[in-house]
């Protein structure tokens, strides 16, 4: 299956990384919580899939639409 990159929906700081590379996840599962405007905004799976890469770590700054993970 093709690799799909997952963008952050928001500019902010990676507050929690909730999964590891290799995990099989379902649509809607949360990969990261990004802190923005004092809120925890989840980065979620757009479909069922397996995490093949995590591109940012906790306390990294991320921009809106920056890719933060890859899934297949």
């Amino acid at each position, binding site marked *: 299956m093709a690799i799909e990159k997952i963008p952050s*929906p*928001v500019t*902010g700081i990676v507050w929690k990384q909730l999964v590891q590379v290799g995990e099989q996840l379902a649509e809607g599962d949360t990969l990261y919580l990004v802190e*923005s*405007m*004092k*809120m*925890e905004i*989840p980065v979620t799976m757009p479909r069922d899939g397996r995490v093949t890469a995590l591109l940012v770590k906790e306390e990294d700054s991320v921009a*809106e639409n920056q890719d933060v993970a890859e899934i297949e």
Partner: protein
Amino acid sequence: MKEPEALLELEARRAAAREMGGADAVAKWHSKGRMTARERIEAFCDAGSFNELGMLTGKGRYTADGHLQDFTPASSVIGNGNVEGRGLMVVADDFTLRGGSSEGAVAEKWIYAERMALEFRMPLVRFVDSVGGSVKILEQAGRTKIPGYALWPSTALMGAVPVASVAFGACVGLGAIRAIGAHFSVMVKGQAQVFAAGPPVVKQGLGHDIGKEELGGHQLCTQVSGAIHNVAEDEHDALSQVRRFLSYLPGNAWETPPRRVTGDDPKRREPALNTLVPDNPRRIYAARKIVEAVCDTSSLFEIAPGFGASLRTYLARLDGHAVGVMLGDPAVMGGALTRAAAQKMERFVDLCDNFHLPIVNLVDQPGAMIGLDAERAGTLLAAAKAGAAIEQASVPWISIVVRRAFGLAGSMLGPWNGPNGTSLNHRFAWPSARWGSIPIEGGVAAAYKREIEAAPDPLARRQELEAYYQRLSSPFRTAEAFGVVDIIEPADTRALLCRWARDAARLTQTQLGPKRRSLR
């Protein structure tokens, strides 16, 4: 009895008009899964209600001795029809005639339809499907002209009657403006593109290779630029969205929106709302559940769901009365007022104010979006304009602070003075509400910087100070000073709003007519 010759000619010319671009062009059009201009009108209007005007407009070719050889109709179909029994004007571009371009158009015809909508105070619906200008009109006219249409009342219409548009296919140049310049616009997914100029012109002018969908498809128009409000899955979906939109609106600015009794109990309690907002202020929640719970069953129609979605905007009903609803959505950009959300707010408030739709504002507003990208985007200017739209609104308004109301954007929960300086500022809150000029977390860190740094345990000192200020910011303390009319049990929100909607509908009957606004 033999028909007079003139009647036969009339019928022959009408038949030619009904053929549009000809059987081959229509068959090719159908093979792409598209309806013709006439089929779209038929699918849109109440059965048998459409009364076509200007059917004889077009170009006749004549023999040397002056007999009609053939007739090519103008590339738009206009007329008046009904939707749910109410009259409106329709202008539909016919792509089978030279791509709906200016080459095959007779401008007087479509402009007449728009002027008639203005004069007869009827909603205007545009079905846009036009590749725009054609250089061949130079040859036809034998001269160029300064661009523009002297008699087109495009701006006056927007203050007087509801204007809706469907982008069915290519909407280029003038076609793009006609699609965008509406109170509600919808484009057909994968089939419509809206841009100033298409890929060939972009290639020539800028050297960029870009596809038409990327340049002006639904993702760009409804999620990035906001030029078009909604996306439709297909042509019928687009038509039904326009019908739905119009169902909330009056026929013009001199009438009140029609009431539709839905049978939903106006006093219905929703206990689930009492626990919807999480105690942890950092946690998001499904804000849409609030509007679904408080509005009449199946009455929600979301406008521009993909654009500036930290603010959600709906047309809805409360005990049958049409209202506009704004809702802060913390799941998108933390609920911040982005440039896009501010532009969306300004347009939505203007729409509601124009057509006497009382506004319900369900507030969860952390403030205007911050950071370099937001500053560069012009967020503050857009927010200021949205604030001005709110201040200029004279339609009845109620705000309920669901959670946060902070900073400049938090102050924009309703008119403070209103255009007459007498706005009631009718505002309520849920017990989960918190507000202030600045949020406590950042505010404490800034105001007590030295004290926190000097403390033996800086983190503990900061948390202690924050806890102290959190207790001070209980909404009940604000209520003691009547800073808010009431703090309500969330389960009772519908009852409060329905009661208000009845009073608001009565008030709007005394406020009819177009609104005057100053520059913003």
